[in-house]
């Protein structure tokens, strides 16, 4: 099974040169190759998720450790190692990534210009994301973290769409540049924190399992943890640093914003959990209230500003910020239920947002505008599309039986258990606000009398429908039967020091 884990990274990277070889006159060929690769990745991720079970000890399964750089300069005996392993938190995330890339390939099926380069960058992004979820070495964690950010600029700048609004304009170059710079800016903080951690641990290695045992003194942790928190927080859409998310998503093409909001934002939260909270428990303990406050602000702030949006993608962008606020609340609760909830929400939100972007993208491809107010009654010509978008909306407002509720419920219980009753109440209120803007959007754009202008709309393409069904399967699976997810996640969350009962 170890090589299945390795395949997760090798396949996307191996596919990139293959794409380059295909002459650009045959876009269909590169699409088939992309579908093949996407399918393989989805299959492997599913296999890994199903095969993973917690067997005591550190919970790391299918370990694969290759020496990369050791006993040289400041590096000790196992220095930097190419160390892949799957653990309870990584398994659902790997599955999520597999699902979203498979769906994204189908959604961007009939992308006209330069499909070949598009898929190269897309799979580079996926390789980076897989790398982060399964690498246990801090250097390679950061390496793949940056690889995931690398192709974002070109993906948005070349294939994105600029948009004009009454009072301001957002060109795709601006969106791409802001997104990339803010993420790399965040990674500067992470880089400094990694260096400080390396010195303080003094073990001469970046292997996280070793760093976890290194007893770091309290004040050091209190100083370095906020670096990790803010550094990863930028990618997790933390409140003051979230503005790249709506602008980035508005400019990005559908497939990219699916991958980006669906998976890349989870990298940030995953980083806070895997690196911040595991290696610096006292630091996490100390900063938990601040993270909680930021999380709550993000949740309420995101949902309220989503209320005021007229552009569909902006609304989904702000709803991502709000849901990531929930994830941060879950992480900040520092107890088993809350953190479980956070990881569940990462998965749930990933599937939900991907589905939302699929639908919005499908609508945009045909209607070429995203302004809610100009649509009316398009449930008539596009019933399936409406059904998919409604399911995504309902999952995001936390309807029981869908993934959103299971995750949000755990987060609320965890937050209340951790004593932040005010955060809990605000969180539930922001869930209600989410219901408001989702339903307002549905009523305004989808229901009501059919606006003649949109009579010509046709149903979603088959590829998009397949992607949507795939994502709905994930949402329903977690909504109705979350046991497989919970068993894997909570076994590993329990191992994290500093997590209360």
């Amino acid at each position, binding site marked *: 099974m170890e090589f299945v884990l390795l395949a997760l990274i090798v396949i996307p990277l191996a596919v990139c040169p293959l794409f380059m070889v295909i002459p650009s006159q045959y876009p269909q060929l590169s699409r088939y190759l992309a579908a093949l690769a996407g399918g393989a990745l989805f299959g492997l991720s599913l296999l890994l998720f199903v095969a993973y079970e917690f067997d005591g000890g550190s919970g790391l399964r299918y370990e694969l450790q290759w020496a990369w750089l050791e006993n040289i*300069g400041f590096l000790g005996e196992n220095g930097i190692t190419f160390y892949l392993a799957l653990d309870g938190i990584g398994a659902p995330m790997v599955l999520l990534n597999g699902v979203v890339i498979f769906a994204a390939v189908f959604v961007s099926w009939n992308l006209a210009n330069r499909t070949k380069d598009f898929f190269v960058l897309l799979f580079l992004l996926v390789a980076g994301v897989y790398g982060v979820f399964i690498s246990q070495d801090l250097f390679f964690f950061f*390496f793949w973290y940056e690889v995931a950010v*690398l192709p974002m600029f*070109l993906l948005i*700048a070349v294939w994105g769409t600029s948009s004009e609004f009454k009072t301001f304009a957002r060109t795709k170059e601006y969106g791409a*540049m802001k997104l*990339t710079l803010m993420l790399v800016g965040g990674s*500067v903080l992470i880089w400094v924190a990694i260096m*400080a951690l390396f*010195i303080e641990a003094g073990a001469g290695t970046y292997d996280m399992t070793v760093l976890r045992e290194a007893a770091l003194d309290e004040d050091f942790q209190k100083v370095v943890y906020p670096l990790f928190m803010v550094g990863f927080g930028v990618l997790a859409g933390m409140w003051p640093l979230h503005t790249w998310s709506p602008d980035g998503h508005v400019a990005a093409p559908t497939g990219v914003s699916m991958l980006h909001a669906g998976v890349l934002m989870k990298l940030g939260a995953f980083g806070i959990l895997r690196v911040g909270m595991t290696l610096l428990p006292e630091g996490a303990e100390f900063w938990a209230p601040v993270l909680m406050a930021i999380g709550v602000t993000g949740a309420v702030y995101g949902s309220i500003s989503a209320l005021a949006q007229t552009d569909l993608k902006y609304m989904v962008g702000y709803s991502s910020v709000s849901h990531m606020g929930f994830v941060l609340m879950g992480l900040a609760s520092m107890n088993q239920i809350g953190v479980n909830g956070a990881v569940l929400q990462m998965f749930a939100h990933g599937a939900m947002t991907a589905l939302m972007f699929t639908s919005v993208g499908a609508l945009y491809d045909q209607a070429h505008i995203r302004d809610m107010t100009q649509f009316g009654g398009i449930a008539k010509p596009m019933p399936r599309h409406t059904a998919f978008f409604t399911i995504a909306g309902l999952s995001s407002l936390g309807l029981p039986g869908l993934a959103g509720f299971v995750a949000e419920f755990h987060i609320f219980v965890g937050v209340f258990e951790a004593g932040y009753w005010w955060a809990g109440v605000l969180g539930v209120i922001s869930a209600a606000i989410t219901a408001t803007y989702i339903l307002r959007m549905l009523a305004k754009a989808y229901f009501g009398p059919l606006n003649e202008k949109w009579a010509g709309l046709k149903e979603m393409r088959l590829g998009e429908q397949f992607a949507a069904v795939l994502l709905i399967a994930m949402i329903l699976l977690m909504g109705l039967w979350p046991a497989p997810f919970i068993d894997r996640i909570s076994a590993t969350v329990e191992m994290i020091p500093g997590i209360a009962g």
Partner: protein
Amino acid sequence: MSTSLEWGLLAPEFLLAGWAAFIILIDLFWGGLGKERLGWLAAIGAAAAGGLSLIWVGDTKEFGTLADINDYTTLFRVLFCGIGATICILSARYVKDRLLHPGEFYALILLAVIGANGMAAAHELLTAYISLELLSFSLYTLTAYAKFDLRSNEAGLKYMLLGAFSSAIFLYGIGLIYGTTGSTQFAVIGDVLSGDTSDIEWGMYMGLALIIGGLGFKVAAVPFHMYTPDAYEGAPIPITALISALAKAAGFAFFLKLFAVAFLPLIDDWRYFIAGLAVATMALGNLVAIQQRNMKRLLAYSSIGQVGYLLVGIAALSQDTASALVLHLIGYAVTNLAAFTCIILYYNWTGKEEIEDYKGLAQRAPYVALCLTIALFSLAGMPLFAGFTTKFILFQAAADEDMLWLAGVAAFFSFVSLYYYLIVIREMYVGEAEEKTRFPTPWLEYTALTVLIAGVFLIGLYPRPVLELAEDATATIFVSEELESGEDLVGVP
């Protein structure tokens, strides 16, 4: 003659000098060879010298007290010869289209390489100074080589005068150091300085300051960097590449050796000055680069930025930082050459060097666009490419010497630098070219480019071999503290 000088040790330098003369003679007597093939010939010569210097891999020999031929020297010799050979290949088409007297052009490049080798091998201030001047003079001339191009003329003038001025300052510094320590050999200076230096403080620190100033000019650290943008912009493009790769690399080879051997005992004194220089260099280099519209000036400021990162290595000098610095230097040289190759190719095709002119390059020459993107991302320190790994190791080593704040500042500015690299990439991929014609594929330049990009990927993905080379190289300059003292200069009885 107490110590017989093993002249054999300098075989590569002799080969280079002989080859330069041979090139000039061929240019004079056999016009038929054509300017382009003359370049290839020169490249073969440089490569042969590089190959020759591999003989001394692993052993450490002394060339009298002037220079020592050890792994450090061998590594840099191979690097410099490699740079020289690449530049000769790259400039072949350029010289054919735009320059006269190709013979002297290539000869001067080979002479510059000799100068660089001398700087790396030097174990004594005078030899170092002379090789420095040899390198500088050839570069001054090469910068002003395009006789009828006003910009090249002006660049040459500025580079020349300021170069002379700063080498005078550098000399004065050496004088003071010689006066206070009584010798010009690094090892001896090192011993004297590690002893009690209370009574010679004035001269020593003044000398040190002046040397830092002079060397600062050579590697283009901030207060002394003013000539760089003009020299880069004015000089013919292959020479800009030569300056950015060879001058910086040789400068740092000498800088590292001098400070590692001679001035190491005073490290606690000069450490924060170099750190100050490093911060200023990174700050100004990256911030002004954001404003640039000309590709060559952009790369000038980007190389100033890169010098800032290398100065971080010097500021936190230790065995690990030195090897990390050498690794980063190699990475920087290879990446810079790759970037310049693409720019030279584009210049040969279109004669344009403004960033806007790169619009739509991705459609017109996808391979060149891809390689330039890889090179720029590597300069910015993005993963998969050399920049990320070398910067990571360098900053971690610097942080190990409790210079975490400096490493943090460096990481911040490498993030700032991403902006202007993205600007260029955006032009290439997002912009629309006027005419969509594809360019003819110059096979030789493409192979050189592919080799360089392969080097960038190698250092990025698996830096172990190169880092080991750097490790062995720096091991030699650090272990030689306990040299037998009192060796006089030229073995005169």
